[in-house]
């Protein structure tokens, strides 16, 4: 084998690399925990763990520099290290089977975290008693929804993610008979009554609520209990000319509509929706307390699950630690307002949800096997020792 290839191989299968990476991950977790004070849990996860490098932005500039390996980098190298060592040192020997299984479990755990990090979708479904919902909403991602509401039975929706709005460019889509020009976008903003022209520098809305309000940009919030409320000025441009400029924001409570080519359109900046192939109807919310106290005993929501495609129609009770799993989604009891007869579910779709369980089983079996093999060897050795002594 070539010397460089051997060095390369030795580096990736070495235990020093494992130890080095584990130390780096310790430092990363420590720094991220401290930074939670400034950024909150969501931003910390993105900055430290769901990134290849932890970036540092130089003050008063747009230059970002990588200053420390991120979670994906360390985790990825750890995975390569583990797999390489596993393959390199693999021996089809039942004595080593316990170790092999434990390593395989660890590899599974790391891959599971990667799959979860990349593919898990968290959203929420909020309903009042009697309401039926067939979609969940993102916790913090928004979308500009352009709805063709002409048909009485359904809406044709074109949803533009917030990330596209942030580019402040023009949006065209085959389903839209017009162009949407994003004249300005604010990641967090509030609105107040007033003449829109009173804020120089900002575009002026000519249609809808925007013609009577001022949009005031706010700094982005990272606090876990606060939500950014984005706002944008969007102009609808047709082949015949502009239809006007609207202000869109989740703070706008009333629908903003316009008509074009005989169709009725509505625009709304709302939390990103994920439509499901089934619906839930909230039948009853129950909030039991321990008698004579305000201590909650049980939160439960009785829902009716209706799946048109699967011809499923059944009642389910969702309560703490007893989620509903259906169609690749898991519905956990998340929040409840018993007085308002409102219940909220956390809706999680994670294709890798079984992987940590499989990993734990593999590691458990591996460690038990290894322990038993060692124990058996030890007993055999002990049983053999007196015989040796007596023969001396």
């Amino acid at each position, binding site marked *: 084998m070539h010397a460089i290839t051997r060095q390369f191989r030795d580096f990736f299968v070495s235990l020093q690399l494992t130890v080095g990476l584990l130390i780096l991950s310790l430092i990363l977790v420590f720094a991220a925990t401290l930074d939670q004070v400034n950024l909150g849990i969501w931003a910390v996860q993105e900055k430290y763990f769901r990134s290849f490098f932890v970036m540092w932005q130089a003050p008063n500039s747009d230059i970002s520099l990588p200053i420390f390996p991120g979670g994906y980098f360390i985790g990825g190298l750890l995975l390569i290290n583990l797999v390489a060592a596993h393959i390199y040192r693999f021996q089809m020997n039942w004595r080593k089977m316990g170790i092999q299984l434990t390593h395989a479990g660890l590899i599974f755990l790391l891959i599971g975290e990667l799959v979860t990090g990349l593919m898990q979708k968290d959203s929420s479904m909020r309903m009042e008693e009697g309401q039926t919902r067939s979609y969940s909403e993102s916790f913090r991602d928004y979308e500009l929804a352009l709805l063709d509401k002409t048909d009485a*039975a359904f809406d044709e929706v074109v949803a533009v993610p917030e990330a596209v709005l942030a580019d402040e460019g023009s949006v065209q889509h085959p389903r839209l008979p017009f162009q949407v020009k994003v004249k300005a976008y604010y990641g967090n903003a509030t609105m107040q009554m007033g003449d829109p022209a009173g804020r120089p520098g900002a575009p002026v809305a000519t249609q809808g609520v925007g013609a009577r309000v001022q949009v005031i940009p706010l700094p982005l919030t990272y606090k876990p209990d606060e939500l950014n409320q984005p706002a944008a000025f969007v102009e609808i441009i047709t082949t015949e000319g502009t239809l006007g400029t609207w202000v869109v924001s989740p703070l706008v409570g009333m629908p903003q509509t316009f008509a074009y080519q005989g169709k009725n359109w509505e625009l709304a900046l709302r939390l990103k929706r994920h439509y499901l192939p089934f619906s839930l109807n909230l039948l009853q919310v129950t909030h039991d307390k321990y008698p004579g106290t305000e201590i909650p005993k049980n939160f439960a929501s009785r829902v009716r699950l209706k799946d048109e495609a699967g011809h499923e129609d059944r009642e389910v009770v969702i309560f703490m630690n007893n989620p509903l799993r259906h169609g690749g989604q898991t519905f956990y009891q998340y929040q409840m307002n018993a007085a308002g007869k409102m219940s909220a579910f956390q809706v999680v779709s994670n294709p890798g949800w079984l992987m940590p369980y499989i990993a734990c089983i593999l590691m458990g079996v591996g460690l038990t096997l290894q322990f038993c093999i060692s124990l058996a060897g030890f007993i055999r050795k002990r049983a053999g020792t007196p015989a040796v002594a007596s023969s001396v």
Partner: protein
Amino acid sequence: MVVSLVILLTGCKDREITAYRAPKDAPAVTAMPQSPATDTNNLPPGHPPIGGAASPGGTDGMTQMANTPVPTAGGSDLTWSAPAAWTPKGGSSMRKGSYAVKRDGAEADFAITAFPGDTGGLHANINRWRGQVGLPAASPAELDAAVQHFDGQGLHFEVVDLAGPSGTRMLGAITSFNGNSWFFKLMGPDALVAAEKPAYLDFLKTIKAP
């Protein structure tokens, strides 16, 4: 490399413009607050209970409220001239004016009340009204965006048009006069109140200080 590719593909998905057909949003089913006792909970702190007819349909809580002494506005009153089609009703002690507005067999209630001070402020009052038609409370910015400003005869009105999910609609106007807050509230079936809106706005123009 495979990992990078997966990450890149996942990253691109966040920027994907999607198009789909969705069922129409079902209107919220929140019923109007059934008992005025619940209604009272929606009042801003320090707000005096509002007159009985403000919450049609209640009985028990109303009896309780009727027994509570209510400070209504003192001093000189505003004057107005109501449309001929509106039938004056015998007002309660808390009402400055009371009319039945009828059309096509349906009836809406128009109440004029006045209380000292700002009674909790504009936002709290609109949110209380939202509760009465079955709408959830809204943020100050949403409320500001929904308020229409209307100038009458030397008086400035803040006007809201609230359509509840259960088919109840309310036109409400608030104005300040001599340190008192005056409320002009037309509440009834959606179609009737919508049809009466021009008459309601014309009515506001007739209100003047003595």
